């Protein structure tokens, strides 16, 4: 569908929020927790914060949570009985306050979860998720969405995108059928489109490189020493992958209690030293620079080659969360100049 534009008054926003809550959908929105600002279930609009560049963790957990039980099993004399994932129990969720970079992250994530087989748990969850984006008025030194094809007001991935105007009211862009459904909950709040230009109300994010240049360079410099130099201070934790909107690696575990148990999937990270450790004891990525190279190559070379989408949306979360200040934008800029 074509994007429809409306004006939503500042005072209408809480009303819309309440209508969505009243419709019975689960609403997750950025909330100030004791240490971080993250998406969480919120009871009322007063709990929602708009004081954040991006949340610490990405919005991906709505469809790809850090731990997910895939099925239960019971062993008995007659074999194994499996209770499958209850797909019909997945609730309708509205993600409120998603930044454009985060919303754009669902495309690569979806591409990974559907590229060989269709991961029904992920895709069903995504189908039942409505994304209400808020474009960025502020950016920090870690933001680089414009260098990887995004921008602070991008509509990609959102179902409705709100942009704050100089008056304090919002430009609402209704992008998809799911967005229309939200609008239909309170059509009176969506007034005639404002004349004000959206662009002038967006954060300025300088273009530092392009993703195509990065792809060209990393393909060429696979054996370069640059990986060693860049990875020197990396201590091999999994923070970058866990806050990333597009990282999709997981581990499968069976948790047993006697004859009962369940199979779960849980986040994993290519930066862990044991990520590729074989049973034989051989590790094809034995050092941290190989693991760092894998992280960059996967996002900027393997993903575009195989599933036609880049694995980085430029949110800069990994840089902010990194305990040793591995600044991905800085590293990529240096690679682009090689």
């Amino acid at each position, binding site marked *: 569908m074509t994007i429809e534009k409306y004006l939503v008054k500042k005072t209408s926003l809480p009303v819309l929020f309440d209508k969505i809550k009243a419709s019975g959908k689960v609403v997750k929105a950025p909330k100030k*927790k*004791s*240490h*971080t600002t993250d998406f969480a279930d919120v009871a009322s609009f007063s709990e929602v914060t708009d004081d954040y560049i991006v949340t*610490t*963790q990405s919005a991906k957990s709505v469809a790809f949570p*850090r*731990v997910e039980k895939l099925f239960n099993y019971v062993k008995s004399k007659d074999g194994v009985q499996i209770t499958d994932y209850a797909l019909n129990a997945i609730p309708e969720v509205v993600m409120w306050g998603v930044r454009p970079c985060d919303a754009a992250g669902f495309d690569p994530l979806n591409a990974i979860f559907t590229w060989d087989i269709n991961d029904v748990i992920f895709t069903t969850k995504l189908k039942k998720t409505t994304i209400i984006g808020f474009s960025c008025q502020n950016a*920090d*030194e*870690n933001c680089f969405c414009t260098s990887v094809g995004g921008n602070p007001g991008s509509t990609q991935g959102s179902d409705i995108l709100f942009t704050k105007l100089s008056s304090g009211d919002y430009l609402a862009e209704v992008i998809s059928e799911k967005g229309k459904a939200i609008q239909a909950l309170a059509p009176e709040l969506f007034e005639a489109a404002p004349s004000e230009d959206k662009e002038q109300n967006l954060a300025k994010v300088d273009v530092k490189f392009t993703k195509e240049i990065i792809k060209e360079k990393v393909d060429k410099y696979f054996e370069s020493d640059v990986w*060693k130099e860049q*990875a*020197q*201070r990396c*201590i*091999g*934790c*999994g*923070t970058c*992958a*866990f*806050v990333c909107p597009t990282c999709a690696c997981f*581990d499968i*575990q069976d*948790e047993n209690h006697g004859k009962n148990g369940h199979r*779960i999937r*849980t*986040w994993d*990270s290519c930066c*862990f*030293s*044991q990520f590729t450790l074989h049973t034989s004891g051989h590790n094809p990525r034995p*050092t*941290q*620079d190989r693991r760092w190279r894998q992280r960059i190559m996967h996002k900027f070379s393997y993903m575009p080659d195989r599933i036609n989408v880049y694995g980085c949306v430029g949110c800069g979360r990994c*840089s902010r*969360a990194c*305990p*040793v*200040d591995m*600044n991905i934008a*800085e590293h990529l800029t240096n690679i682009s100049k090689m």
Partner: protein
Amino acid sequence: MVDVKKKAAELLSSEAVKVIIGYTEGTGGKPRAAFIQNVADVEKLIFNSQCVMNLAVYLTKAEIKKLGKPAIVAPVNVLRAIIQLAFEVQIQESDIVVLGITPDEKLVEFQSFAAIESYLEDFKMELDAKEKETLAKISGMSLEERWAYWTEELSECFKCYACRAACPMCYCHKCAVEQNKPQWIPVAAHQLGNMEWHIMRAMHLAGRCVNCDACHNACPKGINLNFLTKLMLADAQEQLGYTGPTLKEGNLLSTYNPNDQENFIK
């Protein structure tokens, strides 16, 4: 800092060391670790009160060892870690040069690990008033409140293991959390997995933790996990007479005193 840079340049140009492990300016002016291999780059070294990362973590990393003999810029928290690592035979005196740095940013050189140990006698490892207050606040809660506090706090953890990776004492190539024969701790970051991971982490650091807060500073979720090890430190000091890292005696939990308290044992 001038004398530290001068010494660093000397060490590099005389090839006494191959790399200087220090701090340099990172994103937004915040410090980050630097591995200086050329004399010309020595100017990039910085030191200020924000340099809280424990650089000793790099001394046991295979990738860094490959760079050759290091000199390490070492404020008090790094010095403590060096003593503990030395006691645990993870580093040898001949393998590193320690560029001690006083609280007022002056260079202090050490001829031996023993010299570091006696220097540290002026910096008793004790919890400050604010830390004690937080410990007292948590300890003062009821049993149910304490349980609620920690389950809530630890439910934030997504098990990225940044706390482990940033800790100079967590140098094991294969951590107990990754053992799977038997599997002690659930891999997943669900409540049980988180609870057991953090309990095990704290216990394995009992009497070894140098109270540098590297774990807390590394945590992307800002979890107060350092207060588990701080509690252990306070308990060890109070109940077992522990004083801090030393080259002389064994580790707290690999030694004993026949007169240790046992008022809780029937």
